[in-house]
């Protein structure tokens, strides 16, 4: 059966829900397709906050924040790879986006005067990060979902999108596997918005939810869109030792400090001015260096010490962190330091889109973490991803509303053909007799990505890594789940996710190998300096005849001229 909507939104996190609401405002028939219930999206796990220059808290010198300061910090944090027109747009819209959520009923933490509270975050010149204790994503996602439910916007839950449908060079819908029944459905639409989040699960130490497998980026790439800056992967400095569950930067924003095995506050050596609140790339490298040099604890971690904040402040401002540390590491931060290590956290790269969220494939749009506008460049500042989701969720919806007015949808033929082709492909996978356990290939991939494309990178190791990824792609093409059923076959879904992840792993690898410089999160030990002459440009990756190729496009500069980053 073929279903029709004006706009299809793939993904039900903050971006998808915000976009769905805007589209519904105009009376257009939008629908959300998601492999999980929207409330289970990874947005729900965002902790520390959302950046917006509300100016509710003055800076250290008594001055007031402005969107321009926000933009300046964001561009510097990006190591000048962000497109400055996009950054200006995001920072300009950020206060409206935060206030809008408040007007929808979101509960924010408050100052004594009743205004929305703001805390300092890394790389920011002002206390700019609006927060709801350490559950900002949870409060925002539930608020948006309440509105989506009220408006009865259709949500296809537990539908795994299997392909994008193209017709005459445009994206006209998608196919999706309904998990419960195993049926493949065709969806036709005048516009498709990808809002599927990041691909952190290609790495073995990640803060990301287990569902963050980069499905959207892989779908877009296969359909002919380009991916941008995929080599820029953020490693968060403070993830809980062993499980790598996120410990918010807000913990340092509230005054937490990092200590090595000798009890030394080592960040003083790496970032004398900002110390523990330097941007994430700087702090993650410092921790990794301390551990490599033998100043970490056995097993590879350092301490995040919150004890001096006192029990009341920890309970009030960081209750979720305390719970996580107790549940998953057996440590109460009121009494003991928290063992932390860097872990993959965020995908700066993603589907190449313009400032309005349009990809290079007409009809396909993207926003949020799965997209690369680019507002984060080579390194995202903490608190900027949540604001990106709601700002661009709305703005890209505006552009879609404008564009779909002029579109005449094709008949159902391309959708019917696509459904048949996906059914054949799934049947083919299930018919294979491959004995190899799919999870073993996944484990090899995550090991390769973390050991060869982690915080420190170098040519020879990366070349080995790329070779390994190509071999894994070959192996997966013969593998198959043991479970051959169509109905509720999660092994099949995990297999399809893995196929996509291996494509993205290759994109990260090719981008990283070709970028012979160090910028933001991408640190080459063989090219330790930033090279603006040759690499102040975006990497693009595409597929041509199933072969991946790399090209480049210029960065949109603006008032902030590239200079050395000093923190």
């Amino acid at each position, binding site marked *: 059966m073929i279903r029709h909507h004006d706009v299809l939104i793939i993904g039900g996190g903050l971006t998808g829900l915000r976009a769905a609401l805007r589209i519904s405002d105009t009376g257009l028939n939008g629908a959300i397709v998601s492999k*999980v*219930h929207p*409330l*289970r*999206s*990874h947005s*729900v*796990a965002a902790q520390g906050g959302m950046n917006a220059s509300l100016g509710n808290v003055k800076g250290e010198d008594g001055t007031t924040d402005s969107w321009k300061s926000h933009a300046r910090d964001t561009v510097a944090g990006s190591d000048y790879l962000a497109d400055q027109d996009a950054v200006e747009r995001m920072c300009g819209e950020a206060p409206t986006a*935060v*206030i809008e959520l*408040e*007007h*929808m*009923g979101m*509960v*924010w*933490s*408050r*100052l*004594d*005067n*009743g*205004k*929305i*509270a703001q805390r300092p975050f890394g790389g920011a010149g002002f206390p700019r990060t609006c927060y*709801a204790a350490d*559950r900002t994503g*949870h*409060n925002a996602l*539930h*608020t948006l979902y*309440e509105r989506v*439910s*009220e408006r009865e916007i259709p949500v296809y839950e537990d539908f795994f999108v299997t392909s994008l449908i193209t017709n005459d060079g445009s994206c006209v819908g998608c196919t999706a596997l309904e998990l*419960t029944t195993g049926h493949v459905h065709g969806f036709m639409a005048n516009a498709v918005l990808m809002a599927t989040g990041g691909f952190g699960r290609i790495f073995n130490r990640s803060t990301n*939810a*287990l*569902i963050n497998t980069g499905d959207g980026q892989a779908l877009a790439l296969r359909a002919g869109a380009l991916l941008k800056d995929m080599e820029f992967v953020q490693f968060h400095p403070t993830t809980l030792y*062993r*499980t790598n569950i*996120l410990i918010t930067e807000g913990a340092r924003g509230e005054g937490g400090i990092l200590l090595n095995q000798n009890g030394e506050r080592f960040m003083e050596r790496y970032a004398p001015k900002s110390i523990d609140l330097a941007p994430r790339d700087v702090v993650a490298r410092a921790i990794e260096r301390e551990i490599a040099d033998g100043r970490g604890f056995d097993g590879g971690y350092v301490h995040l010490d919150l004890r001096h904040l006192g029990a009341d402040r920890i309970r*009030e401002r960081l209750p*979720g962190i305390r*719970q*996580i540390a107790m*549940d*998953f590491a*057996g440590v109460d931060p009121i009494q003991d330091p928290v063992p932390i290590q860097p872990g993959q956290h965020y995908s700066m790269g993603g589907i190449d889109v313009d400032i309005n969220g349009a990809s290079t494939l007409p009809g396909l749009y993207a926003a949020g973490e799965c997209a690369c506008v680019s507002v984060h460049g080579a390194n995202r500042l903490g608190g900027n991803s949540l604001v990106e989701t709601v700002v661009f969720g709305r703005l890209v919806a505006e552009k879609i509303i404008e564009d779909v007015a002029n579109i005449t949808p094709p008949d159902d033929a391309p959708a019917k053909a696509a459904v048949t082709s996906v059914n054949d492909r799934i049947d083919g996978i299930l018919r294979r007799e491959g004995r190899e*356990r*799919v*999870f073993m290939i996944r484990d090899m991939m995550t090991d390769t990505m973390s050991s060869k494309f982690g915080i420190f990178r170098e040519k020879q190791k990366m070349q080995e890594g790329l070779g390994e990824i190509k071999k894994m792609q070959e192996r997966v093409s013969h593998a198959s*789940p*043991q*479970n051959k*059923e169509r*109905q*509720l*076959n*999660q*092994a099949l879904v995990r297999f399809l996710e893995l196929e996509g992840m291996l494509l993205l792993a290759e994109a990260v690898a090719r981008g990283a190998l070709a970028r012979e410089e160090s910028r933001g999160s991408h640190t080459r030990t063989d090219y330790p300096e930033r090279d603006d002459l040759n690499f102040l440009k975006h990497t693009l990756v595409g597929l041509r005849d199933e072969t991946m190729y790399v090209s480049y496009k210029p960065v949109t500069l603006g008032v902030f001229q590239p200079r050395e980053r000093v923190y």
Partner: protein
Amino acid sequence: MHLKVYRYREGMAAPRYDTFELVSSPGMTVLEALFHVHEQLDDSLAFHYSCRGAVCGTCAMLINKVPRLACRTQVESLLKGDLKVAIAPYPAIGETVPWDPEKEVLLEPLPHLPVIKDLIVDMDVFFRFYRFIEPVFRPSDATPEKERRMDPAAVTKLEVYTNCILCAACSAACPVEGQNPEYIGPAALAKLYRFHIDPREAEGASRLHRADIPNGWWACELYGNCSRVCPKGVPPRTAIARAVAALHKEKNEAE
């Protein structure tokens, strides 16, 4: 140790229990144990998962006869008997299969919801009651230019209820839900109470009227299982008791 797991799929006359042997390690969660089974022993085993950090509410199931999040429950703590929760007995947690709590962890789907496959239940009914209470903010005044001011103390009170992750552990633990499928249940009632106490709200007390029906506030028998099993410390029982008291007061004043 062994995982004893409820297995069911459409077409089976009755569910069965499969036992999987595995080696537990310190810190291993029930969710990790399930992945071990899925990856190494039987990839047809079905269970829901997402964040693995106790924030998304996806993986609630009946673990050793108590509704809990699989990602937050450690296998060794269960075997040691450290995680006992005293909840009032009800039919759905009665004996279904013999099991040895010192050597086995018993995993079953959340009670009171239809089973789709193995540990996956159909949450539609749960969300139907969520929608019934109309969980949408309705402010008392015209939209201001900036944020509405809120007293930080009011936020602290609200947070107790906004922390709900809608995992349905409370519903599964509620003896009344087992008897009365039309009871709108502790999660929806706690959510309704959250809007009632929001100082920015227009309706104030009248919000409570939405559940002033036999299957609403009045169906609760104050067992308190809901508050005891909530993985986020949300106390639906307290919300319901306060709502009932407020409605009583309102009715008395009217008379």
